């Protein structure tokens, strides 16, 4: 079973700076591009991670792609639902291959204590509407060795000892993504948020976090509407955005 529109149109590049940037350039140059189009690359020369971090990946070993969506139905204030949907979709996909898949808030995908996938979402806001959304995904599949800089990284192949066909993996991942993306159009946010919390790394488990330069013991209790992390520290509740807190792993 294939997805209906996600990945129906695939632009496959040998090498590109970053698939997100390539997609954004297509849009700004008015290149016609249908919703659900996938722009994938064998290799990224400037793969983007969070806050300028570099996403490292060897050629043709991993899935590196961007999906173009137009989530006009989503209020700007509810945009964290996009992050939730994509994170859950990657978990859905991975659960057929490995166990202990979790979402490290806000949207890194972990197996055990190691990162297997990252997401970078870039929206374009026009007249208070999310006009377009470029969803960049890096999912480590066949890469066997990671550099010292990517100390916390892992791949599916490392975990299972198997080798995977990237095109087949892309198709089944696109199906998982489309299902979760379509769900935020119709399902109530409360139940989707609940599914996210069930998959959340360290949910309701006390652990150490770096907050304002200090290590503090806290327990994740949930997220609020805009996606901030709700942490209980010494019995009182605190909310953090992604710049205010670092996981100590």
């Amino acid at each position, binding site marked *: 079973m294939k997805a209906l529109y996600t990945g129906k149109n695939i632009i496959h590049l040998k090498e590109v700076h970053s698939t997100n940037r390539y997609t954004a350039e297509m849009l700004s140059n008015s290149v016609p591009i249908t919703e659900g189009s996938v722009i994938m690359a064998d290799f990224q020369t400037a793969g983007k991670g969070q806050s300028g971090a570099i996403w490292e990946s060897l050629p043709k070993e991993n899935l590196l792609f961007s999906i173009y969506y137009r989530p006009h139905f989503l209020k700007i204030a509810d945009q964290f639902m996009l992050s939730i949907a994509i994170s859950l979709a990657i978990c859905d996909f991975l659960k057929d291959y490995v166990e202990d898949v979790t979402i490290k808030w806000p949207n890194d995908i972990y197996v055990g204590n190691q990162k297997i996938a990252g*997401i970078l979402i870039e929206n374009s*806001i*026009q007249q208070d509407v999310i006009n377009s959304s470029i969803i960049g995904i890096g999912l480590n599949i066949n890469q066997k060795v990671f550099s010292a800089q990517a100390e916390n990284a892992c791949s599916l192949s490392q975990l299972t000892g198997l080798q995977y066909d990237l095109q087949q993996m892309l198709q089944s991942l696109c199906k998982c993504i489309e299902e979760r993306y379509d769900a935020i159009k119709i399902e109530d946010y409360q139940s989707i948020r609940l599914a996210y919390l069930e998959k959340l790394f360290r949910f309701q488990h006390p652990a150490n976090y770096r907050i304002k330069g200090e290590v503090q013991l806290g327990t994740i209790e949930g997220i609020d509407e805009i*996606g901030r992390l709700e942490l209980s520290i010494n019995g009182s509740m605190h909310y953090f*955005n992604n710049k205010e807190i670092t996981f100590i792993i």
Partner: protein
Amino acid sequence: MDIKEIQELIKFVAKSGVSEVSIDRKDFKITIKAQGNAPAIVNMQAAPMPIAAAPVAAAAAAPAPVAPAANENANLITIKSPMIGTFYRSGSPDKPSFVNVGDKIGPGNVLCVIEAMKLFNEIESEVSGKIVKILVDNASPIEYDQPLFLVEPM
């Protein structure tokens, strides 16, 4: 530097749209920072030589130019933030700002990026005009509805 000169300087800073001006001379140092729509002196240090009363007088005189600055803003369009997040003037630290004071903008032009929980939002202009003032510093946290840009309609 006398009070009149300081007032002139404040007016100049308000009109120029820059967020901060520092002048460091042999006998004094003055820093004027724009806060929201009105500039205010945040720091003035007189060197040992000049009359001690001068900085006090300057501080007292500071609120005066605020009113004209507000009037000048009357026919300007204020572009406000559609969301809570962190305000960025460029797509990445090594890239130039999307817009600067004096730039002409039109509908669809990207003005800034607002990031929240790792979702990056390029904010496009709905209006045509000229950027008169940028009200928020790069990488600052911003609230919903917070004024970001002043635009002179064209």
